[in-house]
């Protein structure tokens, strides 16, 4: 697990993980690169990564998932090079 500060360096061998707003402040980081296992057919899911990253117990159903900047299901297997974001409840407008 590599913590990257500042501009992200896309890497085909890793999954870029982003946290926003309250989630970022609680975790103390905004971006991580998670190394993927080249031998593994199916990558980890956002729900699994949430636990691996010890972000706070089970994945809160209020937290939405974006994969490559599209809303996605928390159980979608991730691919190397994917950008995963955990989004706390939205409050725009």
């Amino acid at each position: 697990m590599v913590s990257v500060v500042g501009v992200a360096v896309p890497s085909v061998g890793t999954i870029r993980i982003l946290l926003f707003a309250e989630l970022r402040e609680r975790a103390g980081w905004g971006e991580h690169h998670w190394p993927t296992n080249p031998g593994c057919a199916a990558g980890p899911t956002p729900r699994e990564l949430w636990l691996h990253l010890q972000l706070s117990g089970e994945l809160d159903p209020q937290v939405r998932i974006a994969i490559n900047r599209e809303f996605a299901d928390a159980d979608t297997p991730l691919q190397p090079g994917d950008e995963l974001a955990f989004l706390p409840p939205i409050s725009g407008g």
Partner: protein
Amino acid sequence: MQLKIDLHSTGFEPLVVLEHWQQEQAQSGIAASAAEAQFIGRVRGITTDGRALEALELEHYPGMTEQQLERLAQECCNRHGVSRCLVQHRIGRVLPGEAIVLVAIGADRRGPAQRCCQELLEALKHHAPFWKREWHTDGSSEWLSGNTPL
């Protein structure tokens, strides 16, 4: 469909933006819409728990926020068959009284213009990645966990 979406990292004047938008269209030879519905949202001077608000901070997800705004606008405008759509949204530190959001919809009929304006506002409030943090006068702050009630 004419669509214009912008994120502003500094203050914007909704009426000035609207005027420029209409002038651009007029210069392109596009006739003014028969029906135009607009909504302007501004920062309240008090926090959700009733204290004085120093400022509101608006965080977004660069790349995804713009993409989502465009998708939500396209979907809503197609569904209502409207011809013009302007969405302007602030990011960063916003002071009480300043505009956060402007939605303007031009259509041939008032019904679609009004419904589209209303639905797009709700859509972006719930499905475009923005997060608000209230800053209090004592320097403390709090992330909001949702929108103000309708």
